[in-house]
């Protein structure tokens, strides 16, 4: 008898506990946020007085519409079957926006699949805002440290409205362009919020990829430069400078350089690039940085009729390419040292590793205050190898 009572008790209590799953959310009820764009909100005049100190952000949230996803690229012409849905909310904090969002959409906002966030240039030109917006994304357990960050020139929300041919979602479209950095050297490779968190904590300056809308197209060459001291954007750099930056920071994957040999264009394709940086400190006013760049590559295109089987000709080409690389890199360094006056090239890390005591001494004044960075002497030396002229020696 006692045994039956125990069984009955177990059966009842287990059945009751089965109905009590607190965390049950049907997948159909989730609204997958895949991208967010942050802009500064327009303030109305009467509101301005009472909200003097507050900055309001306008967040554009891109939701996936799963039912429209299955059709692939074929349903593009039909506007009713858009695979995404953009919602715009305003708020002082990100969590406030997401909470407001829940009141505007039939599906619970769910950020675990968030891929990319885009910050408009107006947002990040104010000190500290970058870290304030990232705080929620880093703190929340739904979002991961692998979310990519882009800086928009102009309005960020507009980027999420781009016609995403041949992809389904504008965010995926933007992501795919960002991945092309291995083919186009003037695109900065993707930056994740985890890496930015590291920069924010170490107070070192950094760069983030730039995105720009050009009518119905997107242009992602160039980068936004941040001052690590107060995490404020100090300016954009163009594609050419980004190329030089990529060469210094070892992120140059593949790219072409156009040089002139005998006044005719010759294109050298860089297949592999490796840079090494050495920092020599005599005293804190005399810091010398030596950059060595080694490249291997091939002749991609040649308008000049040259005999590429001749070593002398090859070395002539190599020297011309070396000059070009040195010019590019020196240009990039000049922009950072003299115009922007921030060290987003990562030299501080090399200094920290090679001479920790000096670094501790000048840490506060490296690219701020005294600015030892802009006073330091930076030398570039390139070493170019042409491995092959390609399939032909000459076309005519």
């Amino acid at each position: 008898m006692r045994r039956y009572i125990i069984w009955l008790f177990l059966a009842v209590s287990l059945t009751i506990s089965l109905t009590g799953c607190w965390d049950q959310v049907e997948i159909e009820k989730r609204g997958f946020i895949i991208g967010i764009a942050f802009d500064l909100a327009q303030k109305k005049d009467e509101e301005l007085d009472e909200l003097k100190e507050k900055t309001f952000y306008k967040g554009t949230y891109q939701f996936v519409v799963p039912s429209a996803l299955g059709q692939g690229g074929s349903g593009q012409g039909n506007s009713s079957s858009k695979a995404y849905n953009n919602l715009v909310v305003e708020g002082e904090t990100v969590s406030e926006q997401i909470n407001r969002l829940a009141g505007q959409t039939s599906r619970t906002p769910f950020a675990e699949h968030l891929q990319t966030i885009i910050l408009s240039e107006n947002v990040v030109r104010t000190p500290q805002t970058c870290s304030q917006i990232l705080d929620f994304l880093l703190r929340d357990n739904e979002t991961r440290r692998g979310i990519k960050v882009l800086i928009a020139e102009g309005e960020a929300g507009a980027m999420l409205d781009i016609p995403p041919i041949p992809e389904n979602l504008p965010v995926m479209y933007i992501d795919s362009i960002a991945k092309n950095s291995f083919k186009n050297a003037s695109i900065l490779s993707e930056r994740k919020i985890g890496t930015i968190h590291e920069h924010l904590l170490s107070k070192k300056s950094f760069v983030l990829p730039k995105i720009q809308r050009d009518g119905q197209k997107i242009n992602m060459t160039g980068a936004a430069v941040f001052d690590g001291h107060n995490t404020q954007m100090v300016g954009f750099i163009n594609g050419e400078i980004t190329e030089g930056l990529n060469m210094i920071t070892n992120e140059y994957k593949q790219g072409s350089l156009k040089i002139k040999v005998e006044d005719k264009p010759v294109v050298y394709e860089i297949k592999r690039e490796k840079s090494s940086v050495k920092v020599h400190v005599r005293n804190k006013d005399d810091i010398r940085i030596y950059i060595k760049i080694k490249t291997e590559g091939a002749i991609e295109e040649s308008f000049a009729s040259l005999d590429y089987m001749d070593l002398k000709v090859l070395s002539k080409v190599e020297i011309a390419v070396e000059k070009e690389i040195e010019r590019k890199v020196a240009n990039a360094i000049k922009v950072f040292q003299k115009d922007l006056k921030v060290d987003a090239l990562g030299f501080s890390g090399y200094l920290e590793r090679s001479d920790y005591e000096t670094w501790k001494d000048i840490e506060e004044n490296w690219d701020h205050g005294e600015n030892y960075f802009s006073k330091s002497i930076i030398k570039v030396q390139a070493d170019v190898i042409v491995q092959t002229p390609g399939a032909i020696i000459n076309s005519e």
Partner: protein
Amino acid sequence: MKTFEYEKGEINEKEIVYLAASYPIAVGVLSIPRTLGRVTNFFDGWVCLVVTGIFCIFVTGVSAKLASYFPGQTFFKYASTICSKPVALILTIYGTIYFIATTSFQTRFVAIITKQYLLFKTPVEIISLVFLFVIVYAVAGSRIGLIRLNLLFFPITILVALFVLAMNIPNFEFENLSPFFTTSWEGYWKGSKESFFTLSGSEILLFYVAYIKKTEKTSKYAMIGAGIPAIIYLMIYTTAIGVFNSQTAGMLVYPTIELAKEAEVPGSFFGRIESLFFTIWIMAIFNTASLALDIVLISLSSIFHKTKKITFIIFLTPIIYFIAMFPVNSIRVSLMGQFLSYMSFGLGVVVPVFLLIIAKVRGIKGNA
């Protein structure tokens, strides 16, 4: 509850390797890169881990040596032989309180992290209660069955940890490791203290050696066992610093879970290995908590010979649950963990060393 009786219920000598290894590996792994990252610069925390690892191996050897002088005797019995019955009683009660609190601490910690990473809405009270029931069920059976279960779980947890580390190799940046030796002596001291707190586990040997068949090589096997967590911790710490750098690791609440979050398995099918890692890691915490509760039962039954095991369990479960629910937030739980660490220093280091010295001075040989 039916129980399956194993032959004699004795532990094989080699199984002590797994016991000594699986007891220290628990919740400390999840935060060790943070605690070290906060007090040391760059990669200097490895010094702390190596030094305390060697210290823990040594202390484990001492505890196992002491206990193996008295084969088949419980801690209470041989402690009475060495230093009179009242002192032995006090030491046993001290140990019992420590292990009860350890069970509570692990139970609460599981609930906190589960709530944070897996079940966002389920109340902490329920998660703790379910976990506690599982532990209670495990210790209610035969002792050797529990130890076999530990042996079964241990390799799985280690494999998953290694898998997470391997998946992080692409994110590893060697620049994060240098410059070397920039930490102050104070930093090394603090780091060593923190690493000792998570690496120490010698106290369980004082109680478990009584159940070992032959004890000639016990202390050797125990020392091998104590070396395993030190190596695992060192690997996890190195990877965390390589992936996050020390400053960032110091700002993440559970850097080891974040490592699992950071890992990207090729092919998007296994996108979320942190849930896999975390589910498996609960097994490691289960090992620690169930061993701790089992030792509570061992030491209680060494004092009260006649009481049945199940009576102790029914009496202890509410107490453990109450202690687990006592701290109001995760920061207080960590403080409780710190307090427990000081207690473990007393039980795992001070007690065995002094007992061994007294035994030598008074010329007590034991039965071996």
